[in-house]
């Protein structure tokens, strides 16, 4: 394999006087542009009693402004041939408009309008609260592993807000008030707490002038209170059981792991790839191909690497009637093998190439490039990791994999929740599932 120099992303950085950060990456290969605003707030900034407010508030951001009635934002963007949406994670809340080139100012107008002049009231909070509770049921409660994952997080983390789901607890969703929402908005939705990323077919110079026109007058706010919680080292395995109506047993496990900025993160990426990416991966060959499990996955971080230390998650669904205890043991045997013995030289070269190729393939889309830039800025503290990422993967050695793997994949460092299938009658006997 001939060595290649990595692609360099020529991101330009600007900052307005009110603290708003602007990151631009021109790409004139298609007449399209992705505009994104990433707020440095997510469920890690919440407190018990207000869990889920980040995500609920994301919904409220579509409810209109002084000059835009509810949901008009979506209509305007779509009428310009664009798409828009938003997503909330543990560490960020991000809004984006993917537009035809030449329409980028519409996104600036909308995002500055709702940052400065959002209008929300009791009536639309009432509707949106039900929409979000409905979303929680369909995307968490009624899914194969949602409730087990929720339980695992609450076991793994003692004191850090990563212990509750981004969508929040239903009991909190019922209580969050309009005043809570307005306080939340004032504290976190300020220009100094946001990063705008623009990727695609536009000119940076002109875009920065327009940005200043639209956002320049919005006052900055005192910095939001820092998240001070941290996890103590775990002293012994934690285990739980989740009984639900299911075709097959399964388990969801989490291992404490560092945050995205940690120098060991590239090794974690490669471990994840070696275990689960492609049909030559270890988990595929050992478990999926012979049908010993129905599904198995490894996910490091929460959506990407996180600001604070979080986890590496392993999820398994057994075949119907499968012996989940035996399967779990085999899974840990396979994980230990990697953690203590590392990879073969061929495997190491392979997983590096897989990572690199998928990094390039993602970079085909303005949207994904923008998300990488924005989330790195918020979660790693700088977008610059975009340009060192491939080199960092290339430098990982087998010793790194063993050192990092054997530190993370310890029994004492994990929480495991087993999914135990039960009858509908037994499920109902537990009371309502919310």
């Amino acid at each position: 394999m001939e060595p290649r120099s990595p692609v360099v992303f020529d991101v330009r950085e600007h900052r307005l006087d009110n603290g708003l950060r602007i990151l631009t990456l021109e790409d004139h290969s298609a007449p399209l542009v992705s505009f994104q605003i990433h707020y440095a707030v997510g469920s890690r900034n919440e407190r018990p009693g207000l869990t889920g407010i980040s995500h609920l508030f994301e919904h409220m951001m579509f409810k209109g402004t002084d000059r835009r009635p509810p949901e008009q934002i979506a209509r305007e963007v779509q009428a310009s041939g664009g798409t828009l949406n938003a997503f909330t994670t543990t560490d960020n809340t991000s809004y984006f408009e993917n537009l035809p080139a030449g329409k980028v100012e519409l996104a600036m107008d909308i995002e500055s309008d709702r940052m400065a002049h959002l209008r929300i009231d009791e009536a639309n909070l009432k509707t949106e609260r039900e929409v979000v509770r409905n979303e929680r049921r369909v995307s968490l409660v009624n899914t194969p592993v949602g409730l087990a994952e929720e339980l695992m997080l609450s076991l793994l983390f003692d004191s850090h807000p990563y212990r509750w789901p981004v969508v929040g607890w239903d009991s909190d969703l019922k209580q969050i008030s309009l005043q809570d929402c307005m306080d939340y908005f004032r504290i976190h939705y300020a220009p100094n707490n946001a990063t705008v990323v623009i990727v695609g077919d536009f000119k940076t110079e002109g875009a920065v002038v327009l940005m200043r026109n639209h956002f320049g007058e919005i006052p900055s706010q005192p910095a939001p209170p820092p998240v001070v919680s941290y996890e103590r080292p775990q002293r012994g395995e934690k285990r739980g059981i989740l009984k639900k109506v299911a075709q097959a047993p399964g388990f969801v496990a989490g291992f404490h792991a560092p945050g995205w900025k940690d120098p060991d993160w590239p090794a974690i990426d490669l471990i994840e790839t070696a275990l689960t990416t492609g049909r030559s991966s270890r988990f595929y060959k050992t478990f999926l191909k012979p049908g010993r499990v129905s599904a198995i996955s490894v996910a490091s971080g929460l959506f990407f690497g996180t600001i604070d230390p979080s986890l590496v998650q392993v999820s398994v669904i057994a075949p119907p009637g499968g012996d989940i205890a035996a399967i779990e043991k085999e899974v840990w045997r396979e994980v230990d093998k990697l953690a203590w013995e590392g990879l073969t030289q061929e495997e190491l070269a392979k997983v590096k190439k897989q990572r690199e190729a998928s990094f390039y393939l993602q970079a085909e889309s303005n949207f994904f490039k923008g998300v990488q830039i924005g989330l790195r800025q918020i979660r790693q503290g700088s977008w610059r990791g975009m340009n060192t990422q491939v080199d960092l993967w290339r430098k990982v050695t087998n010793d790194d994999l063993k050192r990092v793997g054997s530190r993370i994949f310890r029994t004492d460092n994990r929480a495991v929740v087993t999914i135990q299938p039960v009858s509908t009658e037994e499920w109902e006997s537990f009371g309502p599932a919310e």
Partner: protein
Amino acid sequence: MSELKGLRMKPTPMLLLQSARGEAGAGGLVKLPPLQKADLPNGLRVIVVESHDLPTVAINLTIKSGSGANPPERPGLAGMTAEMVLLGSPSRSAEQIAEEVDSLGATLTSISTWDCSSLTSTALSSDTGRMLDFLSDLAQNASFPRKELDLLKQRRLNELKTKLDNPSIVANERFAEVLFPEHPYGHPPDGTAASVPATTREDLTAFHASHYTAGNAILIIVGDVAPAKIIDRVRIAFEKWQKGKPSLAGPEAPVSPRETRIVLVDRSDLTQTQIRMGHLGIARNNPDWFPLQVANYILGGGGFSSRLLDRIRVQKGYTYGLNSSFSARMLPGPFVISTFTPHETVPEVIEESILVEREFQERGPEPRELEEAKSFFVSGYPRSFETPAGIASALLEVELYGLGDRHIETYQNRMAAVTADLVRCVAREYFDTKRLSIVCVTKADEVRERLEKLNRTGIFGEPGRVEVSAFF
């Protein structure tokens, strides 16, 4: 991308942005860079498009037969065949294939839709030749090892079981069954607990022999490649592929059910009801496809711009998500409204949906709605061409459904020409609220009586049938 150190790169724009003409709106017209097309003597159609932004390539080898070609007693056959193609040839074992693909950092997957089976690959462009040799070997020489077939059946059976824990998928499949009781479109494309074990190696080799032929295939390559060189490489790799029989008889067009039928699939542990309601829609080559896209967008396909989401989510708060769509296939596929709601509000969601739909049929679109919908499709069209894989699938659609060489360049003007009258006409012709197939995956106890009551109100015209069906 402004700099690619050490990589060959020509700043050829993928799409030329032209100033808008006529009614096409402000987004610029899509014009693909010249593509190279070649038909090999054995009938294989080859299309190559250059795109030099990144050192990557998308390759799509498509067989023009999919799950629509499954025999009635063998649902899942097309999908299993496509999967088995990746699992062995005389010169490569399944393990070798997997190692080879992964060590290139490439991806190789099989996808079966109703109308085709595709082997798709993404790779670094420097590996294009190797991937082509590879695909050529697999498509022509697949050896269907028995051992691999046994394992595949086991995996499929596991997947069929675990799928039952996903109420949304169950709702989709049961809806298809209710709408297409006698047609391949009504059988699950992944097969059933009966069909998967019954499928023999001979079924697969027979399907492969009759469908995996050069004359029934399209090869599309998009990426950082030199077309003339690539076409030469394709000629060498694929010249020995058999042409196959000229045309294969597909299934007959499906027939619409005559009455409303409401099926409650009972799962009392669920806290939400999954709802699917719809009827027979259109084939992809239907000339009314353009106005119908606009009509569906306004009704339920356009997210917050659509009337159904506005009424059912924004005004009523009954749901988090709702979508309507025409699945336009070789033969008429379904039109379906998909949503979910708490059990208590199921009758309201169904009733409101029908009322919204009827109002739309009666009055047609508001001028603002029409303009916004058209603009969404016209100005948004370039988004389909952002990545090599996107370009490949747009070109495949044109080839597969015979949409004509000028489809892509005329798309925006044809969409822009859609009028309010036309939208109202097609809404009246193709939406039908009196012969609905409705499937609710739900707690039947809680919902049945109220749906029977709704049925008696005459909302469906002639009252339909309400049935409860076991989940498992």
